[in-house]
């Protein structure tokens, strides 16, 4: 079955609204990263957060390792936040490679 599940599949926001994206994974993970993929396809690493809470700018990630879940909170969304947010884990048992979710597609309207 799919190792990394992200929800919701898509999200539409009004500029200024907050959003919470979820990532659930089926195996214990030594590494967890959140990425932003632009509509043009380029990939940006947002946060590396295998456990606990991390902040960068308007983004906050909280990972609860033993519950195998992570969230990404976007505050005060902007139109430039539109794109796809990917969660990826490095499973304990699977060597050094990231397994990606399908992503959450976010559209922020002005």
């Amino acid at each position, binding site marked *: 079955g799919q190792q990394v599940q992200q929800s919701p599949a898509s999200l539409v926001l009004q500029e200024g609204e907050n959003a919470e994206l979820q990532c659930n994974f089926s195996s214990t993970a030594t590494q967890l990263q959140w990425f932003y993929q632009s509509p043009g396809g380029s*990939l940006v690493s947002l946060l590396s957060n295998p456990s606990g809470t991390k902040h960068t700018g308007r983004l906050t990630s909280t990972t609860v390792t033993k519950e195998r879940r992570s969230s990404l909170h976007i505050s005060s969304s902007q139109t430039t936040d539109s794109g796809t947010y*990917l969660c990826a884990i490095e499973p304990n048992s699977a060597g050094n490679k990231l397994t990606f979710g399908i992503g959450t597609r976010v559209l922020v309207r002005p």
Partner: protein
Amino acid sequence: GPKVLQIPSHQIIDMGQMVTLNCDPVSNHLYFYWYKQILGQQMEFLVNFYNGKVMEKSKLFKDQFSVERPDGSYFTLKIQPTALEDSAVYFCASSLLGAHEQYFGPGTRLTVL
């Protein structure tokens, strides 16, 4: 932050030709990776490489694929011969050690005609 570079950004070739995708990883990193993303689909692991050797490869890493990093220069992915289904964006990544944060390049969009 640390940057991974990929050359070229786009490549269009005819089916059956050889292609080499180049990656300039973060300078002190020891682990290198290739991932493949077909348009509109999930990012998938192809191969990782450490200490001059392939450590692990997925079923997507066909016999026509090879990787190397001669003398600490570019980390390359070679496809010979190419097939139509090889059309995708190929992302290179590197990490200082295993189970560390992976830094990704901007991708090479490969189109096989």
